[in-house]
């Protein structure tokens, strides 16, 4: 047999498999709806979890940027020489990105600005109680402890304030959310694989005779398996498309509603909907088809050992 003839034979076999898959999908549309619904539900929940994880990641990144400052308060009686030496020492640390000196007067000005109408309260102060300070930025918040430990020992340092605790807690929290989300997705995936495999099992047993005959006339396992896998994969794909629509439009609606309602502060932490569509489409399509194929294979496993 030459390769051209062989290829066209393979192609015809493939075409048959496809046609049969579509036919059985149509015949089986009632149960198919159950499969599609379950896949859609799983993927929509996956989408929500994804959005949540991404948003929390955003919050964490924002927080890291905002709170990665270490404030080193200095003793009042520090000399200029000491001040310069201290600044150099801190600046020369490998982990330090920048050091900014803020005098007690500058600090008071900033405070007044922040307090706005309540700033008259500060007028009554006889002398400025705020200390001079270095504002130190580290390259990564993970280095904070290291830098703080080192700077604390230095001459002329009165106190150090930094926010690593908060950030740590936030990171931990984000981790829990991620784990919880993944666990939920995992459980739902198993459930929907189970539902798909049951749906396909119904098709398989409805076509038991046909499969038996196929075996007797010499159909390969691949030929018999093919239509069912296509059926499962198509269920998955339809579920994926539906869930992409639901998640995309649902989230867009929610996002716009929240922005309109003055909660702009909140939306800056949310991932923008437009950046999601492509990724979500790819992830959902892959997962939907994977769930479908796996479900089909499971339902056929026992069956093909004839």
């Amino acid at each position, binding site marked *: 047999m030459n390769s051209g003839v062989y290829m066209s034979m393979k192609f015809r076999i493939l075409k*048959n498999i496809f046609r049969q898959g579509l036919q059985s999908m149509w015949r089986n549309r009632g149960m198919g709806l159950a499969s599609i619904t379950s896949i859609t539900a799983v993927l929509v929940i996956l989408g929500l979890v994804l959005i949540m994880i991404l948003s929390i990641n955003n919050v964490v990144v924002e927080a890291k940027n905002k709170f990665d400052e270490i404030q080193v308060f200095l003793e009042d009686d520090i000399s200029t020489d000491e001040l310069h030496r201290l600044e150099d020492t801190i600046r020369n640390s490998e982990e330090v990105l920048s050091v900014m000196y803020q005098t007690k007067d500058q600090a008071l000005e900033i405070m007044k600005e922040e307090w706005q109408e309540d700033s008259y309260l500060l007028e009554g102060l006889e002398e400025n109680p705020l200390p001079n300070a270095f504002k130190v930025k580290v390259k990564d918040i993970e280095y904070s402890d290291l830098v703080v430990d080192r700077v604390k020992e230095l001459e002329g340092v009165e106190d150090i304030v930094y926010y690593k605790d908060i950030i740590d807690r936030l990171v931990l929290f984000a981790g829990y959310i991620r784990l919880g989300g993944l666990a939920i997705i995992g459980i739902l995936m198993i459930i929907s694989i189970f539902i798909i495999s049951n749906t396909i099992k119904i098709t398989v047993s409805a076509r038991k005779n046909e499969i038996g005959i196929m075996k007797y006339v*010499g159909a390969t396992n691949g030929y018999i398996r093919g239509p069912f896998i296509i059926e499962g994969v198509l269920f998955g794909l339809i579920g994926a498309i539906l869930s992409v629509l639901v998640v995309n439009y649902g989230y867009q609606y929610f996002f716009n509603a929240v922005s309109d309602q003055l909660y702009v502060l909140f939306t800056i932490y949310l991932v923008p909907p437009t950046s999601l569509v492509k990724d979500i489409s790819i992830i959902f399509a892959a997962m939907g088809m994977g769930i479908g194929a796996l479900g089909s294979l499971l339902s056929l496993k026992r069956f093909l050992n004839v």
Partner: protein
Amino acid sequence: MIRFIDITKVYKNGVKALSNVDLNIGKGEFVFIVGASGAGKSTLIKLLLKEIEPTEGSIYLNGEDITQVRGRRVPHIRRNVGTVFQDFRLLPNRTVYENVSFALEIIGASRRDISRKVPSALNMVGLGSKAYCYPDELSGGEHQRVAISRAIVNNPPILIADEPTGNLDPDTSWDIMDVLLDINRRGTTVLMATHAREIVNTMKQRVVAIEAGRIIRDEQRGVYEHEVSHIEEHI
């Protein structure tokens, strides 16, 4: 063509279905396998179709030891063996034509090939005019003709018929036998397991009698006789 060499089959539940069976069937032969239910006829056929594996011994089909053939090649072996069953096994939602073309579709035959081979296979069994009927519009005998047509459409060198007349009345059974004989005359080796005493006795073909998993008789132009020997034992 078909050779069983010292075949023993013990099922998992301990039943010894065949013990040390040797059987040699040449190209173009017509062979009846006779014996009571449970004698081992079905086991013999299942072994040929590789539905089950022998416990011991080897089976040669067209010069190949099929007991050594594994998984993926099994379908290709089955394509060389047409099969017909007592219960016809047609697909109810397909026409006669589609039931027959089915056997060609799965091996990826071209449209032209199918449109040439299917009508000729249907004419062979005398069903050319019913190509577009559905199985429920056909009689029992016609069902079996469709099944035979499907079994031979791929032109296999061997046709196995497992009690093909078991569900048919005597007249229809004879029609089916005529078809099988016709196919045999064209060079196909036919192996038929049966209980139909009258058919066996009239056809005067080779008869292999099995009892309790052993071949007790193998005669050219043989007769059924099983019942007779039974009666003699009682006398």
